[in-house]
């Protein structure tokens, strides 16, 4: 058994190690070391917890058993998960953090003596407030992440589910959560605690259902942030520095990512949260569109264009992930490079279903990360490039965002693909993207549409090079 002061110092050390873990991610070279710091911080935190309890009788063996069960499930998932399923995995993991926070809060509520928080029915006021906030945020994280997971996995439709009075209902429920916490703290009633949990689960569910598939990057980042705040709430209850520091880090990390994602779409956070993007003006945009001529080509034409180019910029999007085309793409690029053609990749901040999604897929396909560029880094290069190869992206290339103030995506930063000498657009059909609007790029003089599955088309082009 070690003293409370000593264990507090060790918790602080593990908190600092977690900061270093995030710091390491500032560049790929230091990132692996950063991850190691994170693991070290976790080991210290767990060991110190055991040592500070000291007298753990025969419950200890069960703790190890449960760690082992959870650990093997986690390790199994981590090794088996395909990189394209990373958004689902992260959403799933968030739900577990949320649920774990709820369980710890329930346990502390039922048996406050174990945590030095008072006795059942007479829990210290401060602890009860912290506990109920932690539990409520945890529950929201859990049910919200489950919905996000189901939407990403395709089990639930990715289209927004909206109904009349939705926002009013959400507002009422959120106010009732605050009221419930107040009543709970004044009465210490366990019934109110369970009602609070139930209502919080409900609100997480209601908050995420109106948000559509392509807004998932924001949702995942937001839930990431929530899981952090839930952990911090529990950290306050347990008076544990490591948990408070981590909760604050994760909370702000998720908030920053949400901000970056919203900025990438030129939408306010509230606009995304209130949901239903593109669902409202669906009919008007479709009926007024006249048929315009497009040029379509085959793999042979595309190969010819690229062979005669001196520089090619690849613009990947979610469609590449769906078609699992990243390896085929890398092979095509290898062939191009053999012909002394300069190739780089342009990644839009909201390409894919989570922040950095495309980067991971390209890294998986052995694309060196110094060939992959962010929007601001590469956008000026399109004017000097010969060919832009758009694979599975759509709205993020739409020039309408720069020209038409009426358009729902007006003002969104887009890749200046149309400035290239020629544009190759791999797509299955002319159907509009997620925003529900037509892409002017399809009808440009210098655009060649390649109607096919992204993976098959890329392979065919490679054969023709």
């Amino acid at each position, binding site marked *: 058994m070690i003293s409370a002061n000593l264990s507090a110092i060790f918790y602080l050390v593990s908190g600092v190690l977690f900061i270093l873990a995030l710091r390491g*991610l500032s560049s790929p070279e230091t*990132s692996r070391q950063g991850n190691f710091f994170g693991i070290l911080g976790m080991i210290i935190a767990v060991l110190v917890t055991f040592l500070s309890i000291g007298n753990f009788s025969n419950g200890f063996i069960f703790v190890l058993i449960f760690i082992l069960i959870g650990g093997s*499930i986690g390790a199994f998932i981590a090794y088996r998960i395909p990189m394209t399923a990373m958004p689902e995995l992260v959403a799933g993991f968030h739900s577990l*953090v949320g649920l774990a926070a709820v369980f710890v809060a329930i346990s502390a509520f039922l048996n406050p003596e174990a945590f030095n928080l008072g006795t059942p029915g007479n829990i210290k006021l401060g602890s009860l407030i912290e506990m109920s906030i932690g539990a409520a945020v945890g529950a929201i994280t859990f049910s919200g992440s489950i919905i996000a997971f189901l939407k990403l996995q395709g089990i639930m439709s990715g289209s927004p589910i909206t109904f009349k009075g939705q926002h009013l209902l959400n507002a009422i429920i959120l106010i009732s959560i605050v009221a419930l916490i107040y009543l709970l703290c004044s009465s210490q009633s366990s019934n109110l605690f369970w009602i609070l949990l139930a209502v919080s689960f409900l609100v997480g569910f209601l908050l995420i259902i109106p948000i559509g598939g392509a807004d998932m990057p924001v949702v*995942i980042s937001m839930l990431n942030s929530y899981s952090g705040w839930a952990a911090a709430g529990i950290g*306050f209850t347990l008076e544990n520095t490591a948990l408070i520091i981590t909760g604050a880090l994760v909370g702000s990390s998720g908030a920053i990512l949400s901000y970056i994602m919203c900025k990438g779409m030129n939408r306010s956070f509230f606009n995304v949260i209130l949901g239903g993007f593109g669902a409202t003006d669906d009919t008007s945009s479709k009926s007024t569109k006249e048929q315009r001529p497009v040029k379509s080509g085959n793999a042979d034409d595309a190969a010819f264009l690229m062979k005669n180019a001196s520089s090619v910029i690849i613009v990947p999007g979610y469609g590449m992930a769906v078609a699992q085309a990243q390896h085929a793409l890398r092979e095509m690029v290898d062939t191009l490079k053999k012909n002394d053609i300069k190739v780089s990749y342009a990644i839009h901040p909201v390409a894919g279903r989570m922040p950095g999604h495309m980067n991971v897929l390209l890294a998986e396909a052995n694309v060196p990360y110094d060939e992959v560029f962010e929007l601001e880094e590469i956008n000026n290069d399109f004017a000097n490039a010969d060919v832009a190869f758009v694979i599975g992206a759509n709205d993020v290339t739409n020039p309408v965002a720069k020209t038409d103030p009426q358009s729902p995506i007006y003002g969104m930063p887009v890749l200046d693909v149309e400035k290239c000498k020629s544009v190759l657009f791999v797509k299955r059909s002319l159907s509009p993207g997620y925003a529900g609007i037509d892409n002017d790029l399809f009808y440009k003089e210098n655009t060649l549409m390649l109607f096919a599955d992204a993976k098959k088309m890329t392979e065919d082009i490679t054969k023709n090079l």
Partner: protein
Amino acid sequence: MEIDPLIFRLSIFILSIFVGYYVVWSVTPSLHTPLMSVTNAISSVIIVGAIIAGLSGNSESIFNTSSIFGFLAIALAAINIFGGFLVTQRMLAMYKKKKKDK
């Protein structure tokens, strides 16, 4: 007059938010996915609370309602810790620089 320890914890919390703010802005966008998986793993340090909860039963009865929730939370957090760190490691191992030999 003594200061409530809560104030110290609140100070740590607020300062950590600022640390987090600056540290996360310095994360390169290409590593945003590993950032999410690693934050996921470290937020599972909530396992310390779960362990305390799990060990709250006395020696005659290890399992009571409170400790069962603790044990369940241990398993959930452990999935996240192992899954989160390992998948991060797997991802980070794929980020390679251009080979200079060509």
